[in-house]
């Protein structure tokens, strides 16, 4: 079975600074990878996804992630954050042969300060 580890539970960052959220997964077969964001009192919104092809994936709101198969990682990055990026971020994985039974990481809370 696949699993996901998000290495940082809390990431405080100053406005306009870069941020990287780490995600590692374990699976013996090929996977699809996702990052979701949850703003306060809202649902889970898809930020970006990796299904195949280019390992550098660009998403909404200026976020990008890089799939590294050898390191089984899918770290999320943004070069310059805004106050509005304050949210909880979830990495998720599903077996590429599956019908999207997602396994989620524990989440990383990003708090952006002025």
């Amino acid at each position, binding site marked *: 079975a696949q699993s996901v580890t998000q290495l940082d539970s809390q990431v405080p960052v100053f406005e306009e600074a870069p941020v990287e959220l780490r995600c590692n997964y374990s699976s013996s077969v090929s996977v699809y990878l996702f990052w979701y964001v949850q703003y306060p009192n809202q*649902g*889970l919104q*898809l930020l970006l*996804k990796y299904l195949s092809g280019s390992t550098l994936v660009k998403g909404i709101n200026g976020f990008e992630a890089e799939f590294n198969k050898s390191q089984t990682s899918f770290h999320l990055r943004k070069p310059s954050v805004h106050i509005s990026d304050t949210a909880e971020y979830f990495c998720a994985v599903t077996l590429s042969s599956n*019908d*999207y039974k*997602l396994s989620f990481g524990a989440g990383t809370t990003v708090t952006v300060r002025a």
Partner: protein
Amino acid sequence: EPEVTQTPSHQVTQMGQEVILRCVPISNHLYFYWYRQILGQKVEFLVSFYNNEISEKSEIFDDQFSVERPDGSNFTLKIRSTKLEDSAMYFCASSEWRNSPLHFGNGTRLTVT
């Protein structure tokens, strides 16, 4: 942009009572899901539903749980006899095809007292 809607946003119930959580998936989507997140824990898969039947369920989804698509728009999760440990945020999701990304609703926070 179309979205998944869930009602109610918060439900409080007493232990042993039945609850029904309601979801309206995006209208042209064919696959439906329920996930839950117990406070402080990971978001967990409960069940997936396609073509009017369960396609996969987790070990959490025991006989106390059931899902139904009673009409062309609603997708419900019923918990027959709630337990304290059922307290969680329940998320409904839908996807257009088997391999297309999931769209989640805002969730229903269930509190069992």
